[in-house]
């Protein structure tokens, strides 16, 4: 087992990893930028090292300072959290070179799955259903036009690298195709440094369903049910739940087995997530694989009772998975609301600033993952998440009722937050019926504006 772990992240996920380490009896080294001197994650760690100025590229993304910190503090392993260097294969390689265990998959697996077009091709070869589309980056307008006719409009143009909605365009008719490709390429170039884009069939009212997998380094793998992450605004997840409403045990098994097959095909190790798109006929398509712990991992933890971050650490330390597929039982229902420092009244503009007063909800079935406290600053340099609020209930209805009362208890004074917007979601009758799709949030916002 590891003796000491460097937590190469900040905020709530750094805290989450530190908590897991403490419970496993492993010492922790936190890193922080000059803007994060008063952050909670470095207070909870055993050691803390300043790795650069506020700008992420000079601190949390500064590989030299991170590796040097790992060396001088003598850690055995690095946990990357999510974001920052979590999906950077070069960083993984450098860790390997320095005999520091990277808690995640191997560099070449990460690299393979990081290239979305390549990953899709690979998964298709291994028999996973994928959305019809180009087999790689589009090379010419002629090819694009022909392909679009073949699979039928609407189609979507997406950047080969990156995500988060940048470099994406939906095209409903041929005359708009050329311009859409050009705009998407320009955005992709600006955002990710690579202009390559690919095309696929656009699915209306799709659901975003993802499967959590765990693979140890001895070839054993399990899936831990699914998460419904359909509630997104500009491709940023807002509310996630597990299990997904209305999913039958058969569909769950089919999704889970597809995920295991895909992960096994690339020799995946550690925790990972396979994202699927589910259409209105319950057909699912492989979208991409995230080779890290996800923001929304707690909903899976709540319904399985399995601590995913501890499992990540144990797997990286060479341990075998302590459970087999048939031992994993889903119990009840969990929902996560991401409470962000954003102003829903003003187009969800991030609103950094000082939290004058902070009081988190408690009581039965409530979990709060947050690095916030009374007096904490939400820094403009990093993401605007204040807290993840997770509610568990025996049923989805109980979880919803519990989440509502917890949101009503939550006190964040000093900066705007998305608490009231989450209440709008939870009171929405379509949501309560489980009628969710990736269009849900936009529809809700339009409804609220028209009122």
């Amino acid at each position, binding site marked *: 087992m590891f003796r000491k772990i460097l937590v190469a992240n900040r905020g709530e996920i750094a805290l989450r990893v530190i908590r897991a380490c403490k419970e496993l009896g492993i010492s922790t080294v936190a890193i922080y930028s000059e803007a994060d001197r008063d952050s909670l994650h470095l207070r909870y760690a055993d050691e803390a090292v300043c790795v650069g100025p506020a700008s992420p590229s000079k601190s949390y993304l500064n590989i030299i*300072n991170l590796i040097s910190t790992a060396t001088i503090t003598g850690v055995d392993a690095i946990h990357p959290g999510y974001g920052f260097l979590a999906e950077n294969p070069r960083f993984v390689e450098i860790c390997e070179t320095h005999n520091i265990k990277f808690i995640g998959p191997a560099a070449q697996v990460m690299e393979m799955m990081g290239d979305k077009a390549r990953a899709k091709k690979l998964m298709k070869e291994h028999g996973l259903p994928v959305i019809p589309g180009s087999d790689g980056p589009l090379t010419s307008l002629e090819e694009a036009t022909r392909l679009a006719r073949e699979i039928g409009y609407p189609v979507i143009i997406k950047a080969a690298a990156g995500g988060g909605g940048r470099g994406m365009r939906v095209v409903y008719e041929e005359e708009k195709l050329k311009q859409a490709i050009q705009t998407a390429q320009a955005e992709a170039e600006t955002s990710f440094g690579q202009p390559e884009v690919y095309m696929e069939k656009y699915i209306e009212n799709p659901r975003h369903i993802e499967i959590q997998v765990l693979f140890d380094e001895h070839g054993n793998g399990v899936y831990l049910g699914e998460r419904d992450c359909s509630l997104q605004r500009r491709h940023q997840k807002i509310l996630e739940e597990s299990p997904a409403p209305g999913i039958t045990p058969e569909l769950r098994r089919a999704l889970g087995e597809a995920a295991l097959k895909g992960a096994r095909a690339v020799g995946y190790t550690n925790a990972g997530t396979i994202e699927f798109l589910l259409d209105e006929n319950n057909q699912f398509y492989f979208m991409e694989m995230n080779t890290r712990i996800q923001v929304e991992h707690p909903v899976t933890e709540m319904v399985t009772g399995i601590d995913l971050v501890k499992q990540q650490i144990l797997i990286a330390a060479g341990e075998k998975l302590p459970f087999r597929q048939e031992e994993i039982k889903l119990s009840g229902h969990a929902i996560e609301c991401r409470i962000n420092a954003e102003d829903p009244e003003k187009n969800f503009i991030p609103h950094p600033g000082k939290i004058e007063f902070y009081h988190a909800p408690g009581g039965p079935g409530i979990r709060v993952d947050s690095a916030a406290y009374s007096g904490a600053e939400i820094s403009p340099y990093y993401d605007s998440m204040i807290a993840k609020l997770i509610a568990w209930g025996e049923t989805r209805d109980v979880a919803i009722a519990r989440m509502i009362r917890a949101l009503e208890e939550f006190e964040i004074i000093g900066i705007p937050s998305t608490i009231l917007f989450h209440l709008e979601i939870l009171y929405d009758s379509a949501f309560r019926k489980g009628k969710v799709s990736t269009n849900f949030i936009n529809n809700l916002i339009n409804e609220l504006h028209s009122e």
Partner: protein
Amino acid sequence: MDIKDIKELMMMLVETDITELNLESNGTKIVIKKGFSGAVQPVVTVTPTAVPVAAPKAEGAEIKPPALEKHAEETERVLGPNQMYIQAEIVGTFYRAPAPGEDPFVTAGQTVEPGQTLCIIEAMKVMNEIECPVRAKILEVLVADAQPVEYGQPLFFVEKL
């Protein structure tokens, strides 16, 4: 002192956290105060850091104190005119000399020229020579040889010449 001067002073109070200014003119008597004066707003007093402090560890919880936090004290010195710190720009191990057993690059009292090597910081097995940015006199070497340093940690206390 006219109305414009007074307005200017008032604006300074508005824009800064100065809370009180008394002033007598001819005999030159000034009082300037900062921070919370007299009738403050509702407050919650917390520990000096205003940040939750790790609870004292109970017996059996063998936990090492934060290794690299002590240098915070260093930056609290009041700097004299032309005095400054030379700080670490990278995280690594600080070496005073080119190799073990050799003379240190610089010692206290010494005058150094711009571009002159002050020390080495080893990071990822690379020896980074740290050069002096200005002509200066070394007043104090703040880190012992072969010690780890973090970003922004003061290494030398110097006086610009």
